[in-house]
């Protein structure tokens, strides 16, 4: 596959990098979303535990979907609702057009509905001469401006008050002052007659309840209340995955959605509609109709696809786009088709086709953060890897991605030819050539290779004697083996001093780059091989300790999914530990506390690698440093440093340039923090931070001169 396919993607990235006014607004909005969510979770009994409940409910309901859908339909019909099952967008559109014609509708008032956007319902209605008016303020602004939403929850976040005032001046033909209260008054007076005269109200629904045949619609503005109560006909378009079993399930979704989106519990208005209420008394009161269109549009196929099924757990909260590092720079117009952000890649593949998803899936740097914030714990990183994989099967891999996937082989070669390879890496003209030919960013200072690898040195070292407490398999991965064996050996020493028998049995690299770029055949092969090589040791009582955060993540989180829950991978996952969490535990158990003054006087800023978040969140290393007297501050923007594993090693827009734009806010935080050095466990984050801040960056072990 050539990179021509990505020409327009490159252009949009370039535009976003040149003018960051929009992305500054967007990032402010994303941060607000994350902060308010975090604040709400403080108040919510059980905190993040609700994610487990949402996940379990969604698993159950999607498993039983065909039956629940039927029960929903039966119960809704009993209450007088007219239910239609639409195969796809065209089918749903035809139904709406017919209905509008039949009822002689001239005005349709809409409340925000992503599902109607999914099938682009507005256009055909407008073509049929019907006035379709969005009533959600953000959507209305976007509609009047003739644009597409920039953010799922705040569609018009990129428009400031003066621009909005201008849009309404143009629309209403009267001058509108550019303060928000004045704009609100104009909006209210502009929309009120539309609400009052609309013959049809069109909404989506957040939940369908099988038990009762009712739907729940959430809004903050109250527009859905008006849209659903004013006209003589209400149409609700609902994706079939929104159907849950019970009222308890519905209550859970109605809470999880706004908590994750904006830290509310719940939204201001939640309308639980059943049947179609009469309006007032007298003959006309009873003439009202209520229609529910249940949309398939690819969902049945998603449900039957083991790697895509989880997308159906999505409750459209937008939290994943509040944390996605690259989305924050380029925004939803670039990082999305109709559905934006991380879930946008998965849903675009499901409902708009693999090809469309493949057009922007390369923006995902596989940091994994979306999964960690998602209320349904949807494994988007895996799904996106699978999408890249399927897309590559049809269109081929980008050359530079093939190069990055082969990084372990390159490292082996680099170490075998160390003096030469290092001379190449250090030569400016050759690096320029390398960028041109294979896409490796010339700007990067890369760690040199060593001729004598960790594996070789470990095998040669004298066997230590000590009192044995535990058996440990040390998992090395690429960097400690080919670039920094001293670091690997220091880790082994630290383990041994605390009474571990450390072995380094035959093992492969972690293989994460294959996941990141969608080389799923190879990723699966490596996952199976490492699982079957290491699981027998676990059965014999060994724990597995990994020094590289991404390797720990691969073993603990990715392998069980890649092997479809194999027993061996599960065992390995359960017994995989990060180095420092393990060392701390040993210190506690043996009572061998370290010298509490070793690092006194040091002020350190800790950077948590994204892949550590679902593991210990970096607490192990931070604790370990604090036990030695260092003052450690966790410095974070709440998202990624931009390196994204090897993403930032690639040259150009879809690599180095974007990675710098993602990292800049974090570089600024570190520079302003007053710490005397940065500490991180990740070998790649460390390159990014050293270059971005010009500060010293250490691995925790390096601080004790242990390396």
């Amino acid at each position: 596959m050539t990179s021509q396919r990505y020409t327009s993607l490159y252009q949009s990235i370039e535009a976003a990098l040149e003018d960051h006014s929009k992305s500054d607004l967007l990032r402010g909005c994303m941060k607000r979303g994350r902060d308010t969510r975090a604040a709400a979770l403080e108040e919510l009994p059980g905190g993040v535990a609700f994610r487990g409940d949402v996940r379990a409910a969604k698993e159950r309901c999607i498993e039983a979907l065909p039956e629940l859908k039927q029960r929903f339909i039966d119960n809704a019909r009993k209450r007088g609702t007219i239910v239609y099952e639409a195969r796809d967008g065209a089918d749903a559109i035809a139904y709406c057009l017919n209905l509008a014609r039949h009822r002689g509708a001239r005005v349709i008032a809409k409340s925000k509905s992503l599902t109607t956007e999914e099938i682009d319902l507005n256009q055909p209605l407008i073509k049929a001469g019907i006035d379709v008016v969005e009533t959600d303020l953000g959507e209305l602004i976007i509609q009047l401006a003739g644009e597409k939403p920039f953010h799922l929850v705040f569609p018009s976040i990129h428009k400031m008050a003066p621009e909005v005032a201008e849009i309404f001046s143009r629309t209403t033909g009267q001058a509108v002052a550019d303060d928000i209260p004045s704009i609100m008054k104009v909006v209210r007076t502009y929309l009120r007659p539309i609400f009052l005269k609309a013959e049809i109200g069109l909404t989506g629904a957040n939940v369908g309840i099988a038990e009762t045949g009712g739907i729940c619609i959430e809004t903050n503005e109250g527009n859905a209340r008006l849209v659903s109560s004013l006209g003589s006909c209400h149409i609700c378009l609902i994706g079939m995955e929104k159907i849950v079993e019970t009222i308890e399930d519905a209550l859970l979704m109605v809470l999880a959605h706004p908590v994750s989106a904006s830290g509310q519990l719940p939204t201001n208005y939640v309308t639980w509609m059943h049947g179609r209420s009469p309006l007032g008394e007298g003959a006309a009161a009873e003439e009202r109709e209520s229609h529910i269109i249940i949309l398939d549009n690819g969902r049945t196929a998603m449900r039957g696809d083991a790697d895509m099924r989880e997308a159906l757990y999505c409750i459209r909260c937008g939290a994943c786009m509040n944390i996605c590092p690259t989305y924050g720079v380029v925004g939803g117009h670039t990082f999305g088709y109709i559905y934006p952000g991380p879930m946008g890649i998965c849903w675009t593949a499901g409902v708009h086709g693999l090809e469309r998803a493949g057009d922007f899936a390369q923006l995902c740097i596989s940091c994994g953060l979306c999964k960690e914030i998602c209320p349904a714990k949807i494994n988007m990183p895996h799904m996106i890897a699978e999408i890249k994989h399927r897309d590559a099967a049809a269109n081929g891999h980008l050359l530079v991605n093939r190069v990055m996937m082969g990084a372990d082989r390159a490292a082996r070669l680099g170490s075998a030819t160390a003096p030469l390879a290092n001379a190449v890496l250090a030569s400016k003209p050759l690096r320029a050539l390398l960028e041109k030919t294979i896409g490796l960013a010339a700007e990067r200072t890369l760690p040199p290779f060593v001729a004598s690898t960790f594996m070789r040195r470990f095998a040669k070292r004298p066997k230590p004697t000590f009192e044995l407490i535990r058996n440990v398999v040390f998992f090395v991965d690429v960097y400690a083996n080919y670039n920094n064996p001293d670091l690997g050996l220091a880790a082994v020493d630290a383990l041994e001093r605390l009474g571990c028998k450390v072995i380094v049995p035959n093992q492969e690299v972690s293989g994460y780059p294959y996941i990141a770029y969608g080389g799923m055949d190879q990723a699966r092969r490596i996952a199976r091989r490492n699982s079957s090589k290491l699981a027998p040791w676990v059965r014999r009582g060994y724990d597995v300790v990994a020094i590289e955060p991404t390797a720990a993540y691969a073993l603990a989180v990715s392998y069980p999914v890649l092997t479809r829950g194999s027993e061996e991978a599960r065992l390995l996952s359960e017994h995989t530990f990060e180095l420092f969490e393990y060392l701390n535990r040993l210190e506690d158990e043996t009572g061998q506390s370290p010298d509490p003054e070793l690092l006194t006087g040091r002020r350190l800023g800790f950077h948590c690698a994204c892949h550590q978040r679902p593991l210990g969140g970096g607490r192990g290393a931070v604790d370990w440093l604090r036990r030695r007297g260092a003052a450690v501050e966790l410095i974070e923007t709440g998202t990624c440093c931009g390196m994204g594993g090897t993403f930032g090693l690639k040259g150009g827009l879809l690599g180095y340039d974007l990675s710098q734009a993602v990292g800049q806010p974090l570089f600024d935080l570190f520079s302003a923090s007053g710490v005397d050095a940065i500490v991180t466990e990740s070998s790649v984050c460390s390159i990014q931070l050293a270059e971005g801040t010009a500060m010293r960056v250490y691995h925790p072990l390096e601080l004790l001169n242990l390396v």
Partner: protein
Amino acid sequence: MAFDFASRFEKLSGIVHRVGSEAAAAATIAQICQTSQAGCIALAGLSSTLVALIKEACEQTCPELSILTEPYAAADLPLAIDRADIGVTGISFAIAQSGTMVEVADNDALRLVSSLPRIHIGLLRAEDIIEHYHDSAGRIRATIADHPENLVLSFISGPSRTGDIELKLTLGVHGPEEAHCVIIDAAA
């Protein structure tokens, strides 16, 4: 519990009034009509006793006020209710943890009374406050079972709000910009 509900509802920019009797509730409503210089008020979902009390209180404090009451003729809707500055509706129950009033309607005239006017006042009895959000399932289930056909339950947690322009919280874009809850609590 009334306290928990009140503090949560107020956090969401709602306004709470705690009164000891239905008559006091009616007086409070009349008071709100007066301060907000309302010309027209619409009532729905209230007992006939309450309607009578509110009429009586309003006649004393604001004699000019026109008072709309059920039944609403279908032919006049929705325009009739759009005239009202204030809508008063009965609240079936409330959830303290989330500051939510739950309104139960089997006729949309009631929904219009709480959603079209600039000010909405919900009338709630203290004994109808449930503490925990998730404990509302039973009450919701019973209500839905009581209505085998149409029924709309509305969760209302404060006034209509948006953050769509510059993320700045703004009230009353479509629905009420003031949301009051009058709690009748014999212990108050």
